Structures are given as structure tokens and as C-alpha cells.
């Protein structure tokens, strides 16, 4: 009888675990103890890498008129990139 009850309890626990488990392939949320290390590690992994900020190594001129003026004064051709959205943030 006791064995059956234990078996029933185990089955109930398994059922509850099944219900509260993360979706297929999903990871469980960090505990409070893991909160800072998990957040910091994830942020570090996803944050911009130096090689993803090389756009900033180009000496972009602010504004088309200013660029045209510099181009005429210094005898250098203008390189104009026109786009929808903002290429400087990648939201384009």
C-alpha cells in the first residue's frame, strides 16, 4: 500500500514537472542566486563586439551639404549612401 502511495506521489510529481517544464528546447529562468551571473554572462555574449563596430572607424561627415563643401574644397569625391532606416544603429 505504502509502495503504491509512493508510486502515486512520484507519478503526481512527474505530472507536475511535465506541466511546469520549460517549452521544448527552452531554458529555465535563472534562480535569484544565479541572476547576476546569468544576466551578465548573457549580456556579454550578445553585446557588440569590436568587429561589429568598425562602421565607426569611417570618418563620416555629418550632413550632405557639409560633405559636399568638403568635397569641393579638398578635391575629394563624395561617397553618399542613402537608405531607409538608420545604418548607424543597424535598424535599417
Amino acid at each position, binding site marked *: 500500500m505504502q509502495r503504491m502511495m509512493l508510486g502515486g506521489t512520484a507519478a503526481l510529481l512527474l505530472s507536475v514537472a511535465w506541466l511546469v517544464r*520549460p*517549452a521544448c528546447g*527552452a*531554458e529555465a*529562468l*535563472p534562480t*535569484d542566486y544565479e*541572476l*547576476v551571473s*546569468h*544576466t*551578465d554572462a*548573457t*549580456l556579454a*555574449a*550578445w*553585446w*557588440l563586439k569590436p*568587429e*561589429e*563596430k*568598425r*562602421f*565607426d*572607424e*569611417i*570618418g*563620416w*561627415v*555629418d*550632413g*550632405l*551639404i*557639409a*560633405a*559636399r563643401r*568638403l*568635397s*569641393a574644397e*579638398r*578635391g*575629394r*569625391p*563624395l*561617397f*553618399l*549612401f*542613402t*537608405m*531607409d*532606416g*538608420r*545604418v*548607424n*544603429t*543597424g*535598424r*535599417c
Partner: protein
Amino acid sequence: MRTGPFSDTRVIERLNAYFVPVYVVNEDYAPDGPAPAEEKAERDRIYRAALAAGMSTGTVHVYVVAPEGQPLGTLHVARAARTERLLELLDGVVAELGLKPGEPLAAPRPQSVPRGHEPGSLVLHLVARGLGGGGSWDGTAENWIVYSTEEAALWLPSGELAEGRSWTIEPCLAERLLVHIYPVTENNDVTKNSIEAGELRARVVQVGAQRVLVRLDGRLQMRHDFYYQPDGNLVETDLVGYLEVERSSGCLAGLRLVTHNGRYGGGRFGVAIRMAEAETLPLRQ
């Protein structure tokens, strides 16, 4: 382009040494856009001159223009995105004009910075990237979300931050952040994002001698179209992170938040958000 040809050493060197590089945002140059009329007129002049010269033209395009103002070459973005094709255009112009290399005419500087804001504002920097499976372009995307001093104060409740105390971040403040949580897509008009379910909750988990640690948990389900046509795609993710509050002043000293199990368009994505570490120049986003 940002993480493609514009991150290639050869392209960077050529643009800095031989050209005057500039980019313009079409939305700013639309008839009702904020760009000055003189700027809009010059962009239109270059477009028409290229068209008259029989060159390819478009709104998402590269134009190389002589110092005297006439177009020397153009490339549609689909071609310009191929680094070798872009180099071919640049090298052709350098050879044709017999250009000599020089120093950049404008000092390189960070191009992604928050809009102007008052001291004491809460400035959040967001980075998004795809994590595989589709639903995102390659590369990364950034946003800056700025809360005024008064709005920043609303992230924390009044009174003592005792362990276990919990609250919900004001929905209007949370939503201003949540609408930017999506991968790298073509559509970036956040006014078209529709939050079906979204919230950020806070709970004090540790009260230290110097700082209070507040856990952030959230959930987001948001309609976001990859392109500009409705496609039924949903952003679905949990959020987790923390706030750090200085005990002595009650000021917010840190904020970090990341997506958890983020999914969109059949793929996975990640968004990381942190409080900007230092004031940056009020330039443009």
C-alpha cells in the same frame, strides 16, 4: 552594409583616404522629414543628375560624386553589399581621378549615440541579434531609450526597499522599452509594433550594505512585421535582469536586462539592454 562592406578594412581605408563619406536617412529627407531644405535639394539634385547620366538610381543606393558635383558612379545596395563590387567602384574612381591618399577629412567617432538628453536621464542601450534559425538578418541592431529624470524616478517605488518587496514597472515606461525588443529586421517603425502582452515586474532580492539588488522579470508577446507588410509574426520572449540601487541615495546605479528564450519568425534571437555607462554627446540616433 554596416557589418558587411562598411566593416571591411579595405573599404574603410579607401573611404577614409580618398573620399568624403556621408550617409543620409531617407525618412529625414522625405518632404515632411526634419532635414533642412538645402540638404533635401542637394540629395534630389544628385539623384536626378545620376538619372540623367543613365546611371542606376534609387533610394537605397550608393552615389559617388565628383568634387565638381557630377555623379561618377552609382550602385544599388544589393550590389554595394558585395564588398568586391563596392571596392571595384571605389578603386575605379580613385584610378580615374588619379587620387592621392590622405587622412580622413572628418575624425571617425561613434555613430550610434543617444539623442540629446538632460543630465540625470536614464539612458538605456539595447543590442539585438539573431541567434539562428531565421527570423533575423545577420549582424546587430541598436536602440537608445531615454527616460527623463522624472521618468527615471518612476522605475523605483517610494519608501523602503525591503527584501521581498515587489512592484510592476509603470506600463507606459515598460512599453517604451518593450517595443524595441525584436531581432534585426527590415521594419523598424516601432509605432507599428503591437504589444499583445507585456510587462516588467521587480522584486527586491538582496539588501546589501551599499546596494540593493532588484530582480526584473518580464514577458513580451508582440506583433512585429519583418518587412512593412503585415505577416503575422510574433515576438515571444521572457525577460530577466536586475536593477542596482544605491542605498545611501536611493538612486538607480545599474540596469541590465536580457531576453530569455526569445523567438521570432521561426528563429531565435537575443536582446541585451544595459544602462549607459557614461554620458555621451547629444548627437543623433
